[in-house]
Protein backbone atom coordinates (compact mmCIF):
# COMPACT_ATOMS: atom_id res chain seq x y z
CA UNK A 1 0.00 0.00 0.00
CA UNK A 2 1.35 3.43 -0.87
CA UNK A 3 2.81 4.98 2.26
CA UNK A 4 4.88 8.04 1.36
CA UNK A 5 4.69 11.78 1.84
CA UNK A 6 2.46 12.19 -1.25
CA UNK A 7 -0.47 10.24 0.24
CA UNK A 8 -3.66 11.70 1.69
CA UNK A 9 -4.78 8.50 3.41
CA UNK A 10 -2.61 6.35 5.66
CA UNK A 11 -2.30 2.69 4.71
CA UNK A 12 -4.62 0.27 6.57
CA UNK A 13 -7.34 2.89 6.87
CA UNK A 14 -10.10 0.49 7.71
CA UNK A 15 -13.82 1.19 8.00
CA UNK A 16 -16.28 -1.45 9.06
CA UNK A 17 -19.33 -2.03 6.91
CA UNK A 18 -21.69 -0.64 9.57
CA UNK A 19 -19.83 2.69 9.53
CA UNK A 20 -19.98 2.86 5.76
CA UNK A 21 -23.71 2.08 5.79
CA UNK A 22 -24.33 4.83 8.34
CA UNK A 23 -22.29 7.35 6.30
CA UNK A 24 -24.31 6.45 3.21
CA UNK A 25 -27.59 6.89 5.10
CA UNK A 26 -26.37 10.25 6.47
CA UNK A 27 -25.61 11.33 2.90
CA UNK A 28 -29.08 10.19 1.75
CA UNK A 29 -30.70 12.24 4.53
CA UNK A 30 -29.10 15.40 3.12
CA UNK A 31 -30.72 14.90 -0.31
CA UNK A 32 -34.15 15.83 -1.63
CA UNK A 33 -36.47 13.04 -0.38
CA UNK A 34 -38.43 13.31 -3.64
CA UNK A 35 -35.30 12.26 -5.52
CA UNK A 36 -33.80 9.72 -3.17
CA UNK A 37 -35.66 7.39 -0.87
CA UNK A 38 -34.73 4.26 1.07
CA UNK A 39 -37.45 1.60 1.27
CA UNK A 40 -36.55 -0.81 4.05
CA UNK A 41 -37.76 -4.38 4.26
CA UNK A 42 -38.49 -4.63 0.56
CA UNK A 43 -37.53 -7.46 -1.77
CA UNK A 44 -37.44 -7.80 -5.54
CA UNK A 45 -39.81 -10.53 -6.78
CA UNK A 46 -39.33 -10.07 -10.50
CA UNK A 47 -38.84 -7.63 -13.35
CA UNK A 48 -39.78 -6.99 -16.97
CA UNK A 49 -37.65 -5.02 -19.40
CA UNK A 50 -39.42 -2.86 -21.97
CA UNK A 51 -37.96 -0.66 -24.68
CA UNK A 52 -38.11 2.47 -22.54
CA UNK A 53 -37.70 1.19 -19.04
CA UNK A 54 -37.90 -1.55 -16.45
CA UNK A 55 -40.88 -2.62 -14.37
CA UNK A 56 -39.79 -4.02 -11.01
CA UNK A 57 -42.09 -6.13 -8.82
CA UNK A 58 -41.50 -5.28 -5.18
CA UNK A 59 -42.93 -6.76 -2.01
CA UNK A 60 -42.87 -6.13 1.71
CA UNK A 61 -44.30 -8.56 4.27
CA UNK A 62 -47.77 -7.07 3.72
CA UNK A 63 -47.90 -5.44 0.27
CA UNK A 64 -46.88 -6.30 -3.29
CA UNK A 65 -46.60 -3.61 -5.94
CA UNK A 66 -44.83 -2.76 -9.18
CA UNK A 67 -42.75 0.32 -9.93
CA UNK A 68 -41.24 1.68 -13.13
CA UNK A 69 -37.78 3.05 -13.77
CA UNK A 70 -35.63 4.17 -16.70
CA UNK A 71 -32.65 2.16 -15.50
CA UNK A 72 -32.22 -0.39 -12.74
CA UNK A 73 -28.82 -0.67 -11.02
CA UNK A 74 -28.58 -3.99 -9.24
CA UNK A 75 -26.30 -3.73 -6.20
CA UNK A 76 -28.03 -6.56 -4.39
CA UNK A 77 -24.99 -8.61 -3.53
CA UNK A 78 -23.51 -12.02 -4.24
CA UNK A 79 -26.92 -13.75 -4.23
CA UNK A 80 -28.48 -11.01 -6.41
CA UNK A 81 -32.20 -11.65 -7.01
CA UNK A 82 -32.09 -9.24 -9.96
CA UNK A 83 -29.34 -11.33 -11.56
CA UNK A 84 -31.48 -14.44 -11.11
CA UNK A 85 -34.56 -12.67 -12.48
CA UNK A 86 -32.63 -11.62 -15.61
CA UNK A 87 -31.36 -15.21 -15.87
CA UNK A 88 -27.62 -14.49 -15.79
CA UNK A 89 -24.85 -16.53 -14.20
CA UNK A 90 -21.35 -15.62 -13.04
CA UNK A 91 -18.47 -17.73 -14.40
CA UNK A 92 -14.97 -18.34 -13.05
CA UNK A 93 -13.11 -20.28 -10.37
CA UNK A 94 -14.00 -21.22 -6.81
CA UNK A 95 -11.26 -22.27 -4.40
CA UNK A 96 -11.36 -25.06 -1.82
CA UNK A 97 -9.56 -23.15 0.96
CA UNK A 98 -11.97 -21.81 3.61
CA UNK A 99 -11.39 -19.12 6.19
CA UNK A 100 -13.25 -18.31 9.40
CA UNK A 101 -13.62 -14.56 9.98
CA UNK A 102 -13.88 -13.39 13.58
CA UNK A 103 -14.26 -9.92 15.09
CA UNK A 104 -13.33 -9.54 18.75
CA UNK A 105 -13.43 -6.53 21.03
CA UNK A 106 -10.20 -6.14 22.97
CA UNK A 107 -8.11 -3.22 24.21
CA UNK A 108 -4.68 -3.70 22.59
CA UNK A 109 -1.71 -1.42 22.20
CA UNK A 110 -0.44 -2.94 18.96
CA UNK A 111 0.47 -0.87 15.88
CA UNK A 112 -1.91 -0.51 12.93
CA UNK A 113 -0.63 -3.21 10.61
CA UNK A 114 -1.71 -6.58 9.29
CA UNK A 115 -0.01 -9.54 10.90
CA UNK A 116 0.16 -12.98 9.30
CA UNK A 117 1.21 -16.27 10.87
CA UNK A 118 1.85 -19.35 8.81
CA UNK A 119 1.56 -22.58 10.79
CA UNK A 120 1.75 -20.84 14.24
CA UNK A 121 2.39 -22.94 17.41
CA UNK A 122 -0.99 -21.73 18.76
CA UNK A 123 -2.87 -23.32 15.87
CA UNK A 124 -0.64 -25.70 13.90
CA UNK A 125 -1.44 -26.01 10.21
CA UNK A 126 -3.56 -22.86 10.03
CA UNK A 127 -2.70 -19.58 8.38
CA UNK A 128 -3.85 -16.76 10.65
CA UNK A 129 -4.31 -13.06 9.92
CA UNK A 130 -4.96 -10.26 12.35
CA UNK A 131 -5.57 -6.56 11.88
CA UNK A 132 -6.95 -3.57 13.71
CA UNK A 133 -10.32 -1.93 13.09
CA UNK A 134 -11.82 1.15 14.78
CA UNK A 135 -13.29 1.04 18.31
CA UNK A 136 -11.01 -1.64 19.77
CA UNK A 137 -12.25 -4.22 17.28
CA UNK A 138 -9.70 -6.70 15.94
CA UNK A 139 -10.33 -8.92 12.94
CA UNK A 140 -8.88 -12.43 12.87
CA UNK A 141 -9.03 -14.62 9.79
CA UNK A 142 -7.92 -18.22 10.00
CA UNK A 143 -7.81 -21.14 7.66
CA UNK A 144 -9.95 -24.23 8.20
CA UNK A 145 -8.49 -27.70 7.89
CA UNK A 146 -9.95 -29.63 4.92
CA UNK A 147 -11.79 -32.06 7.22
CA UNK A 148 -13.46 -29.41 9.41
CA UNK A 149 -17.15 -28.59 8.99
CA UNK A 150 -17.91 -24.97 8.12
CA UNK A 151 -21.17 -24.63 10.06
CA UNK A 152 -19.68 -26.21 13.15
CA UNK A 153 -16.43 -24.23 13.07
CA UNK A 154 -18.09 -20.80 13.19
CA UNK A 155 -19.94 -21.68 16.43
CA UNK A 156 -18.80 -19.76 19.49
CA UNK A 157 -17.61 -22.92 21.29
CA UNK A 158 -15.30 -23.76 18.35
CA UNK A 159 -14.07 -20.23 17.69
CA UNK A 160 -13.24 -19.33 21.31
CA UNK A 161 -10.40 -21.89 21.83
CA UNK A 162 -8.73 -20.92 18.52
CA UNK A 163 -8.75 -17.21 19.44
CA UNK A 164 -7.77 -17.86 23.07
CA UNK A 165 -4.77 -20.00 22.05
CA UNK A 166 -3.67 -17.34 19.61
CA UNK A 167 -3.88 -14.46 22.10
CA UNK A 168 -1.99 -16.60 24.60
CA UNK A 169 0.77 -17.27 22.05
CA UNK A 170 1.05 -13.51 21.48
CA UNK A 171 1.44 -13.04 25.24
CA UNK A 172 -1.81 -11.09 25.51
CA UNK A 173 -3.64 -11.47 28.82
CA UNK A 174 -6.60 -9.09 28.61
CA UNK A 175 -10.34 -9.62 28.58
CA UNK A 176 -11.92 -10.01 25.15
CA UNK A 177 -15.41 -10.47 23.76
CA UNK A 178 -16.54 -12.28 20.62
CA UNK A 179 -18.51 -9.87 18.40
CA UNK A 180 -19.18 -11.67 15.13
CA UNK A 181 -18.15 -14.74 13.12
CA UNK A 182 -18.56 -15.80 9.51
CA UNK A 183 -17.08 -18.24 6.99
CA UNK A 184 -15.44 -17.38 3.71
CA UNK A 185 -14.43 -19.34 0.62
CA UNK A 186 -12.39 -17.64 -2.12
CA UNK A 187 -14.21 -17.26 -5.43
CA UNK A 188 -13.16 -15.45 -8.61
CA UNK A 189 -16.36 -15.27 -10.66
CA UNK A 190 -17.98 -12.58 -12.80
CA UNK A 191 -20.79 -11.90 -15.23
CA UNK A 192 -19.59 -11.69 -18.83
CA UNK A 193 -21.27 -8.29 -19.16
CA UNK A 194 -22.42 -5.95 -16.40
CA UNK A 195 -25.19 -4.53 -18.57
CA UNK A 196 -28.36 -6.20 -19.78
CA UNK A 197 -30.23 -3.48 -21.71
CA UNK A 198 -31.57 -1.19 -18.97
CA UNK A 199 -30.40 -3.30 -16.05
CA UNK A 200 -26.83 -2.64 -14.87
CA UNK A 201 -24.99 -4.77 -12.28
CA UNK A 202 -22.47 -3.45 -9.75
CA UNK A 203 -20.47 -4.78 -6.81
CA UNK A 204 -20.90 -8.39 -5.66
CA UNK A 205 -24.01 -8.70 -7.87
CA UNK A 206 -21.65 -8.40 -10.88
CA UNK A 207 -18.44 -10.04 -9.69
CA UNK A 208 -16.68 -11.71 -6.76
CA UNK A 209 -12.96 -11.57 -6.00
CA UNK A 210 -10.96 -13.50 -3.39
CA UNK A 211 -10.96 -11.69 -0.04
CA UNK A 212 -7.17 -11.27 0.24
CA UNK A 213 -6.24 -7.72 -0.74
CA UNK A 214 -9.45 -5.88 0.24
CA UNK A 215 -10.89 -5.89 -3.27
CA UNK A 216 -14.51 -6.71 -2.43
CA UNK A 217 -16.23 -3.51 -1.33
CA UNK A 218 -13.40 -1.42 -2.79
CA UNK A 219 -14.06 -2.69 -6.29
CA UNK A 220 -17.78 -2.06 -5.65
CA UNK A 221 -16.98 1.59 -4.93
CA UNK A 222 -14.90 1.76 -8.12
CA UNK A 223 -17.95 0.40 -9.98
CA UNK A 224 -20.10 3.16 -8.47
CA UNK A 225 -17.57 5.90 -9.34
CA UNK A 226 -17.41 4.59 -12.90
CA UNK A 227 -21.15 4.12 -13.41
CA UNK A 228 -22.47 7.19 -11.57
CA UNK A 229 -21.32 9.91 -13.96
CA UNK A 230 -22.06 7.83 -17.05
CA UNK A 231 -25.65 7.18 -15.97
CA UNK A 232 -26.06 10.88 -15.09
CA UNK A 233 -24.71 11.81 -18.51
CA UNK A 234 -27.18 9.49 -20.30
CA UNK A 235 -30.12 10.83 -18.28
CA UNK A 236 -29.03 14.44 -18.95
CA UNK A 237 -28.90 13.68 -22.66
CA UNK A 238 -25.15 14.31 -22.97
CA UNK A 239 -24.22 10.70 -23.78
CA UNK A 240 -25.78 7.92 -25.86
CA UNK A 241 -26.75 4.92 -23.73
CA UNK A 242 -23.88 2.99 -25.35
CA UNK A 243 -21.58 4.72 -22.83
CA UNK A 244 -23.02 2.22 -20.32
CA UNK A 245 -21.28 -0.52 -22.33
CA UNK A 246 -17.98 1.17 -21.50
CA UNK A 247 -18.87 0.81 -17.81
CA UNK A 248 -19.08 -2.93 -18.37
CA UNK A 249 -15.91 -3.05 -20.53
CA UNK A 250 -13.79 -0.98 -18.14
CA UNK A 251 -14.97 -2.65 -14.93
CA UNK A 252 -14.93 -6.19 -16.30
CA UNK A 253 -11.30 -5.67 -17.33
CA UNK A 254 -10.60 -4.24 -13.86
CA UNK A 255 -12.08 -7.46 -12.40
CA UNK A 256 -9.71 -9.53 -14.56
CA UNK A 257 -6.71 -7.55 -13.28
CA UNK A 258 -8.03 -7.78 -9.71
CA UNK A 259 -8.47 -11.53 -9.97
CA UNK A 260 -4.94 -12.06 -11.29
CA UNK A 261 -3.52 -10.30 -8.22
CA UNK A 262 -6.01 -11.81 -5.81
CA UNK A 263 -5.35 -15.34 -7.08
CA UNK A 264 -1.61 -14.91 -6.44
CA UNK A 265 -2.41 -13.84 -2.87
CA UNK A 266 -4.84 -16.73 -2.48
CA UNK A 267 -2.25 -19.25 -3.71
CA UNK A 268 0.05 -17.99 -0.97
CA UNK A 269 -2.54 -17.71 1.83
CA UNK A 270 -4.44 -20.92 1.04
CA UNK A 271 -2.11 -23.08 -1.12
CA UNK A 272 -4.26 -25.02 -3.62
CA UNK A 273 -1.82 -27.95 -3.88
CA UNK A 274 1.30 -29.54 -2.42
CA UNK A 275 3.69 -27.63 -4.71
CA UNK A 276 2.31 -24.26 -3.61
CA UNK A 277 2.50 -25.24 0.05
CA UNK A 278 6.07 -26.56 -0.07
CA UNK A 279 7.34 -23.58 -2.08
CA UNK A 280 5.46 -21.15 0.16
CA UNK A 281 7.20 -22.62 3.22
CA UNK A 282 10.56 -22.35 1.43
CA UNK A 283 9.89 -18.70 0.55
CA UNK A 284 9.00 -17.90 4.16
CA UNK A 285 12.18 -19.57 5.45
CA UNK A 286 14.40 -17.54 3.06
CA UNK A 287 12.50 -14.23 3.06
CA UNK A 288 14.29 -12.64 6.00
CA UNK A 289 17.76 -12.81 4.42
CA UNK A 290 16.76 -12.52 0.76
CA UNK A 291 14.78 -9.37 -0.14
CA UNK A 292 14.25 -10.49 -3.75
CA UNK A 293 12.62 -13.75 -2.61
CA UNK A 294 10.61 -11.79 -0.02
CA UNK A 295 8.85 -9.92 -2.84
CA UNK A 296 6.95 -13.18 -3.48
CA UNK A 297 5.11 -12.57 -0.16
CA UNK A 298 3.70 -9.23 -1.40
CA UNK A 299 0.05 -9.29 -0.25
CA UNK A 300 -0.91 -7.24 -3.34
CA UNK A 301 -3.44 -4.95 -1.68
CA UNK A 302 -6.18 -3.44 -3.77
CA UNK A 303 -5.23 -0.46 -5.93
CA UNK A 304 -7.26 1.50 -8.50
CA UNK A 305 -6.94 -0.03 -11.94
CA UNK A 306 -6.07 1.82 -15.15
CA UNK A 307 -8.61 1.70 -17.98
CA UNK A 308 -5.91 1.36 -20.61
CA UNK A 309 -7.21 1.08 -24.14
CA UNK A 310 -10.69 2.29 -23.17
CA UNK A 311 -12.54 3.90 -26.05
CA UNK A 312 -13.24 6.89 -23.79
CA UNK A 313 -9.52 7.77 -23.75
CA UNK A 314 -7.92 10.21 -26.19
CA UNK A 315 -4.31 9.49 -27.09
CA UNK A 316 -3.08 12.91 -28.16
CA UNK A 317 -0.25 13.92 -30.51
CA UNK A 318 1.73 14.91 -27.36
CA UNK A 319 1.35 11.56 -25.59
CA UNK A 320 4.79 10.38 -26.76
CA UNK A 321 6.50 13.35 -25.12
CA UNK A 322 5.44 12.18 -21.63
CA UNK A 323 8.00 9.84 -20.09
CA UNK A 324 6.16 9.36 -16.80
CA UNK A 325 2.90 10.49 -15.17
CA UNK A 326 -0.53 8.84 -15.47
CA UNK A 327 -1.33 7.67 -19.01
CA UNK A 328 -4.83 7.98 -20.50
CA UNK A 329 -7.14 5.70 -18.52
CA UNK A 330 -4.98 5.76 -15.37
CA UNK A 331 -6.33 6.71 -11.96
CA UNK A 332 -4.95 9.99 -10.57
CA UNK A 333 -1.59 9.87 -8.80
CA UNK A 334 -1.99 11.33 -5.35
CA UNK A 335 -0.12 14.60 -4.96
CA UNK A 336 0.02 17.24 -2.20
CA UNK A 337 -0.98 20.81 -3.15
CA UNK A 338 -1.56 24.10 -1.34
CA UNK A 339 -4.99 25.69 -1.89
CA UNK A 340 -5.80 28.99 -0.16
CA UNK A 341 -2.82 28.50 2.12
CA UNK A 342 -3.99 25.05 3.26
CA UNK A 343 -2.43 21.71 2.47
CA UNK A 344 -4.74 19.67 0.24
CA UNK A 345 -4.38 16.69 -2.07
CA UNK A 346 -5.16 16.37 -5.75
CA UNK A 347 -7.81 13.66 -5.28
CA UNK A 348 -9.75 15.90 -2.89
CA UNK A 349 -9.51 18.90 -5.25
CA UNK A 350 -10.74 17.13 -8.41
CA UNK A 351 -14.36 18.09 -9.12
CA UNK A 352 -17.37 15.82 -9.60
CA UNK A 353 -17.39 17.03 -13.25
CA UNK A 354 -14.51 17.01 -15.71
CA UNK A 355 -11.43 18.80 -14.37
CA UNK A 356 -8.80 20.37 -16.59
CA UNK A 357 -5.48 20.82 -14.83
CA UNK A 358 -3.06 23.31 -16.33
CA UNK A 359 0.50 23.56 -15.11
CA UNK A 360 3.31 25.58 -16.62
CA UNK A 361 5.45 28.65 -16.49
CA UNK A 362 3.66 32.00 -16.43
CA UNK A 363 0.00 32.65 -17.16
CA UNK A 364 -2.31 30.05 -18.67
CA UNK A 365 -2.49 30.78 -22.39
CA UNK A 366 -5.81 32.18 -23.60
CA UNK A 367 -6.14 28.99 -25.69
CA UNK A 368 -6.92 27.09 -22.47
CA UNK A 369 -9.67 29.48 -21.40
CA UNK A 370 -11.06 29.71 -24.95
CA UNK A 371 -11.31 25.96 -25.04
CA UNK A 372 -13.06 25.93 -21.67
CA UNK A 373 -15.58 28.54 -22.81
CA UNK A 374 -16.31 26.43 -25.92
CA UNK A 375 -16.89 23.36 -23.76
CA UNK A 376 -19.15 25.25 -21.36
CA UNK A 377 -21.16 26.68 -24.28
CA UNK A 378 -21.77 23.07 -25.33
CA UNK A 379 -23.27 22.46 -21.89
CA UNK A 380 -20.32 20.49 -20.54
CA UNK A 381 -19.27 21.00 -16.94
CA UNK A 382 -15.56 21.42 -16.51
CA UNK A 383 -13.51 22.97 -13.74
CA UNK A 384 -10.12 24.56 -14.40
CA UNK A 385 -7.38 23.93 -11.87
CA UNK A 386 -4.19 25.91 -12.41
CA UNK A 387 -1.10 24.71 -10.61
CA UNK A 388 2.14 26.38 -9.62
CA UNK A 389 3.36 29.48 -11.45
CA UNK A 390 0.38 29.16 -13.79
CA UNK A 391 -2.29 31.81 -13.28
CA UNK A 392 -5.29 32.84 -15.30
CA UNK A 393 -4.90 35.98 -17.37
CA UNK A 394 -6.84 38.57 -15.44
CA UNK A 395 -10.36 39.07 -16.73
CA UNK A 396 -10.49 35.79 -18.66
CA UNK A 397 -12.21 33.75 -15.99
CA UNK A 398 -15.77 34.96 -16.68
CA UNK A 399 -18.21 32.14 -15.93
CA UNK A 400 -15.49 29.51 -15.59
CA UNK A 401 -15.27 27.55 -12.40
CA UNK A 402 -11.63 27.93 -11.48
CA UNK A 403 -9.30 26.95 -8.69
CA UNK A 404 -5.63 27.67 -8.11
CA UNK A 405 -3.14 25.52 -6.25
CA UNK A 406 0.53 25.91 -5.36
CA UNK A 407 2.91 23.00 -5.78
CA UNK A 408 4.53 21.38 -2.76
CA UNK A 409 8.27 20.77 -3.27
CA UNK A 410 7.82 20.33 -7.01
CA UNK A 411 5.87 17.10 -6.45
CA UNK A 412 3.20 17.78 -9.11
CA UNK A 413 5.82 18.59 -11.75
CA UNK A 414 7.67 15.38 -10.97
CA UNK A 415 4.72 12.99 -10.56
CA UNK A 416 2.91 14.29 -13.67
CA UNK A 417 6.02 14.88 -15.83
CA UNK A 418 4.68 18.45 -16.08
CA UNK A 419 7.77 20.46 -17.11
CA UNK A 420 7.84 22.79 -18.94
CA UNK A 421 4.05 22.58 -19.25
CA UNK A 422 1.30 19.98 -19.13
CA UNK A 423 -2.48 19.88 -19.44
CA UNK A 424 -4.35 16.92 -17.94
CA UNK A 425 -8.05 16.21 -18.40
CA UNK A 426 -9.63 14.13 -15.61
CA UNK A 427 -13.00 12.38 -15.96
CA UNK A 428 -15.63 12.85 -13.26
CA UNK A 429 -14.43 9.56 -11.66
CA UNK A 430 -10.88 10.97 -11.47
CA UNK A 431 -9.33 8.84 -14.24
CA UNK A 432 -7.13 10.67 -16.75
CA UNK A 433 -8.71 10.68 -20.22
CA UNK A 434 -6.26 12.89 -22.16
CA UNK A 435 -3.10 14.96 -21.70
CA UNK A 436 -1.25 17.50 -23.78
CA UNK A 437 1.85 19.67 -23.62
CA UNK A 438 0.14 22.50 -25.47
CA UNK A 439 -3.56 22.67 -26.36
CA UNK A 440 -4.90 23.59 -29.77
CA UNK A 441 -8.39 24.73 -30.75
CA UNK A 442 -10.89 21.89 -30.52
CA UNK A 443 -8.67 19.68 -28.33
CA UNK A 444 -10.74 19.94 -25.17
CA UNK A 445 -14.18 19.59 -26.76
CA UNK A 446 -12.99 16.59 -28.78
CA UNK A 447 -11.52 14.86 -25.75
CA UNK A 448 -14.65 15.47 -23.65
CA UNK A 449 -16.86 14.30 -26.53
CA UNK A 450 -14.81 11.11 -26.71
CA UNK A 451 -15.00 10.65 -22.93
CA UNK A 452 -18.78 11.06 -23.10
CA UNK A 453 -18.97 8.26 -25.65
CA UNK A 454 -20.08 10.51 -28.52
CA UNK A 455 -16.71 11.36 -30.04
CA UNK A 456 -15.25 10.34 -33.37
CA UNK A 457 -13.12 7.72 -31.67
CA UNK A 458 -16.22 5.67 -31.02
CA UNK A 459 -16.87 5.25 -34.73
CA UNK A 460 -13.52 3.57 -35.36
Amino acid at each position, binding site marked *: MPNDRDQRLAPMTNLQQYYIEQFLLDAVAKRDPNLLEVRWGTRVDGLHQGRDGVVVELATDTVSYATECDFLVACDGARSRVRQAVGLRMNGTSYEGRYVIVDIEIDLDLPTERLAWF*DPPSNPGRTMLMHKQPDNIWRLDYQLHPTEDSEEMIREDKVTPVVAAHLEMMGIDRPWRLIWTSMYRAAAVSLDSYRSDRVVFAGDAAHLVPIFGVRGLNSGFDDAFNLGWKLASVIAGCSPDTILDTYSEERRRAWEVNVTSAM*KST*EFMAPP*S*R*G*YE*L*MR*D*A*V*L*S*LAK*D*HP*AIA*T*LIDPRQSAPIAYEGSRLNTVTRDEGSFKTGPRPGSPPLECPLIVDGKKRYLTSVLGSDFTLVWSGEGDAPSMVTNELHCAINLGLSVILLTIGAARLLSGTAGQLQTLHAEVVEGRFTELYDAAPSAVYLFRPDGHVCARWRIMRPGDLSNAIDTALGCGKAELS
Partner: protein
Amino acid sequence: MSVWSRDERERAYTNLCDAVTAAGEDKESLFLARLCLLLMEELGDAEKFEAILAQAQLQSGKGLSRSASE
Protein backbone atom coordinates in the same frame (compact mmCIF):
# COMPACT_ATOMS: atom_id res chain seq x y z
CA MET B 1 22.45 -9.04 -7.95
CA SER B 2 19.10 -10.48 -9.00
CA VAL B 3 18.32 -9.95 -12.68
CA TRP B 4 14.72 -11.10 -12.53
CA SER B 5 11.92 -8.64 -13.08
CA ARG B 6 9.12 -8.90 -10.58
CA ASP B 7 6.70 -10.36 -13.12
CA GLU B 8 9.24 -12.86 -14.41
CA ARG B 9 10.00 -14.04 -10.89
CA GLU B 10 6.32 -14.48 -10.08
CA ARG B 11 5.67 -16.41 -13.27
CA ALA B 12 8.70 -18.65 -12.72
CA TYR B 13 7.62 -19.24 -9.11
CA THR B 14 4.10 -20.25 -10.18
CA ASN B 15 5.54 -22.66 -12.79
CA LEU B 16 7.80 -24.13 -10.12
CA CYS B 17 4.85 -24.63 -7.72
CA ASP B 18 2.87 -26.36 -10.46
CA ALA B 19 5.87 -28.55 -11.35
CA VAL B 20 6.31 -29.68 -7.72
CA THR B 21 2.61 -30.57 -7.55
CA ALA B 22 2.86 -32.41 -10.88
CA ALA B 23 5.87 -34.44 -9.65
CA GLY B 24 3.70 -35.90 -6.89
CA GLU B 25 4.59 -36.22 -3.22
CA ASP B 26 6.59 -39.45 -3.63
CA LYS B 27 8.76 -38.01 -6.42
CA GLU B 28 9.06 -34.37 -5.36
CA SER B 29 12.48 -34.81 -3.68
CA LEU B 30 13.87 -36.46 -6.79
CA PHE B 31 12.37 -33.72 -8.95
CA LEU B 32 13.88 -30.96 -6.79
CA ALA B 33 17.28 -32.75 -6.68
CA ARG B 34 17.32 -32.96 -10.51
CA LEU B 35 16.39 -29.29 -10.72
CA CYS B 36 19.28 -28.40 -8.39
CA LEU B 37 21.79 -30.39 -10.45
CA LEU B 38 20.66 -28.70 -13.65
CA LEU B 39 20.82 -25.25 -12.04
CA MET B 40 24.27 -26.09 -10.61
CA GLU B 41 25.58 -26.89 -14.09
CA GLU B 42 23.97 -23.73 -15.46
CA LEU B 43 25.55 -21.66 -12.68
CA GLY B 44 29.06 -22.97 -13.50
CA ASP B 45 30.67 -21.17 -10.56
CA ALA B 46 32.11 -23.32 -7.74
CA GLU B 47 32.56 -20.46 -5.30
CA LYS B 48 29.05 -19.14 -5.76
CA PHE B 49 27.65 -22.63 -5.51
CA GLU B 50 29.34 -23.22 -2.14
CA ALA B 51 27.88 -19.93 -0.83
CA ILE B 52 24.35 -20.80 -2.03
CA LEU B 53 24.65 -24.30 -0.60
CA ALA B 54 25.46 -22.79 2.80
CA GLN B 55 22.53 -20.38 2.58
CA ALA B 56 20.09 -23.15 1.76
CA GLN B 57 21.13 -25.33 4.69
CA LEU B 58 18.49 -25.59 7.39
CA GLN B 59 19.87 -24.35 10.69
CA SER B 60 17.81 -24.34 13.83
CA GLY B 61 15.64 -21.24 13.97
CA LYS B 62 16.29 -20.34 10.35
CA GLY B 63 14.58 -22.90 8.17
CA LEU B 64 11.10 -24.11 9.03
CA SER B 65 11.40 -26.95 11.49
CA ARG B 66 8.51 -28.72 9.78
CA SER B 67 10.32 -28.74 6.43
CA ALA B 68 13.50 -29.93 8.15
CA SER B 69 11.80 -32.89 9.79
CA GLU B 70 10.08 -34.07 6.63
